[in-house]
């Protein structure tokens, strides 16, 4: 995934789309932000200078689906193999019925991309019929996170199979990228050098958050501002 921060307006459409697509539960009082479940959190970054040099940007943060050798920071710590990385798609997934809720993966993730279900998930009665049947809801006491809309990948693979195409060639777009009105989010196969996302990852404006920790995040950010690069990684 590549996210062009110079295009992002901070409209939060990506976050809302993610919430709706993935049946992310919420509470009547969401004032405790350290306990609210947000798969795609939008950060507000500032350059710390006074007007007229003041600048700010928004930074949407999905799960980075880290590509570090052998294991992602979260996958190898899970004692019950509830979170695993699919080495074909590169997606880091979470098996909710297997999760024991030890939260070791939350501790291991430096991006705060993982959320714990502190309460039983509930939706207003009128919203229950709007829940997506393609994504399972999560129970209290387990961890959840962005899956790059893995269910859409499965759907695309099934369709490719039926169409007589190699399922590994199937392409799809996650809900956040689809919802972005400025097309700031580009999604695709980073391993395919011809894909747009692979080209964007080589862009001189591209950087990754905390690249120096060797987590190898699969989410690239694009910004022409050096202060944004510096805020993304201490190594600049």
């Amino acid at each position, binding site marked *: 995934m590549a996210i062009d921060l110079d295009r992002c307006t901070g409209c939060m459409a990506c976050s809302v789309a993610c919430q709706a697509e993935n049946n992310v539960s919420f509470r009547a009082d969401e004032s*405790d932000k*350290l*306990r609210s479940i947000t798969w795609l959190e939008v*950060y507000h*970054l500032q350059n710390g200078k006074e007007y007229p040099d003041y600048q700010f940007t928004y*930074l949407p943060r999905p799960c980075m689906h*880290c590509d*570090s050798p052998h*294991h992602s*920071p979260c996958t*190898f*710590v*899970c*004692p*019950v*193999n*509830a979170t695993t990385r699919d080495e074909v798609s590169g997606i880091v997934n979470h098996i909710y019925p*297997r*999760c*024991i*809720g*030890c*939260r*070791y993966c*939350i*501790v*291991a*993730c*430096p*991006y*705060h991309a*993982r*959320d*714990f*279900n*502190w*309460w*039983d998930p509930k939706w207003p009665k009128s919203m229950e019929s709007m829940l997506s049947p393609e994504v399972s809801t999560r*129970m*209290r*006491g*387990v*961890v959840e996170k962005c899956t790059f809309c893995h269910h859409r990948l499965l759907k695309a693979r099934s369709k490719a199979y039926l169409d007589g195409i190699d399922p590994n060639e199937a392409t799809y777009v996650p809900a956040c990228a689809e919802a972005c009105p400025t097309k700031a989010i580009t999604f695709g196969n980073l391993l395919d050098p011809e894909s747009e996302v692979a080209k964007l990852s080589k862009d001189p404006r591209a950087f990754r*958050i*905390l690249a*120096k*920790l*060797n*987590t190898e995040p699969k989410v690239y950010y694009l910004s022409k501002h050096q202060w944004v690069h*510096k*805020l*993304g*990684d*201490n*190594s600049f």
Partner: protein
Amino acid sequence: MDKALIPEGVKRCPLPAFALWVLVLLGVIGWGVYAGIMVLLKALNLTGLNDYFGFGLYITVDLAIIALGAGAFFSGFLYYGLSRFFPALKELHKIINLAVIVGFVCYTGALAVLLLEIGQPIRGWFGYWHANVHSMLTEVIFCITCYAIVLVIEYVPIVLENRKLSEIKPLRLFGHNLHELMAIFALTGTFLSFFHQGSLGGVAGVLFARPFAYRTGFFIWPWTFFLFIFSAIASGPGFTALICRAIEKVTGKNLVDRSVYELIAKIVGGLLLFYITLKIADTLYWALVLAPEAGLKLTDFYWGPYGIWLLVTEIIICGVIPAILLLTPQTRQSNIIMFSMFFLNCVGVCINRFVMTVQAIAAPVMPFDKWEIYVPTVYEWAPCIAMVAYCILIISLSYRYLPLFPRERELNPAP
């Protein structure tokens, strides 16, 4: 009936006084059990934990109590394993029963609190069924279970030494035979507990995306793996000695010879010096090499309540000073200094476990993150305090009804 259960030739407090003491402890345990049940029923939202602080008081207390309980396996290792080569260690025979009981209560208490810590306690057995061999937590789960079983086996013969129980021939024979096998169990326990203490250190050390906790290491084990072992064996015997001293103070009796405390002080002092030297080396490497590699400097890891004072207290006040004073014969002569140093040593290991659990995740990693502060709620304090009450209860019952101290009769002759 109470009198019939008390070991022969020793004096214990009147039953009403003991019953009142037990009642107080049961009250505290009841309070903790209530809080624990509420957490199980209403979930972890009752705690101070959140998505920033995935680990908190439960884990800190577990790590600390398990480190302090290391006196059991290490004293067992010294007594059953090494005393044949170093006869001076045979002196530990006088305190080994207490060491086993301290280890037993620490481990079983920690297991009870651990049950509250997981969001889906009913799935706790998944740790054995879906075990991820790459996870340090898997190593913890297996080692803590096996070692808790070993501690039960070690505790059983002590229980069977009770006056009334030993009158039953099959039980007496069973207990005696277990005693004969104890060296094997003690050494098995040593092996398991070495790994267990180490894997608890590994839990933090392998977090390569958390610069505060991450350490390089040897093969698959980060340096914290070894540091946790050394810190546990450097503090565990001292903790056992402190408990023994506390029982002596409460009961007004001499229970072990001073030479036992002297020996423990020498062992603890030497191990602490060894550990703290490695810890200082590790801290320097972390501050000067690992942190800069992650784009951070030492001062980035300390802020507000999680200040540098924690590092100074842990290493200097609770490490270097106790090591020096315990190894100096003159200062070791003073009971006040010796037991204070044991206490500081135990405080140091608790700070270390807190720092590697809570501060490790309080420190921001992303440059646009900010520090957060973790405040445990009463639902976290109550089960932890209850666990301490449980430990005191088992030790109290064991002291009253079991012949824990072989020298008690000689040291406290009847008037």
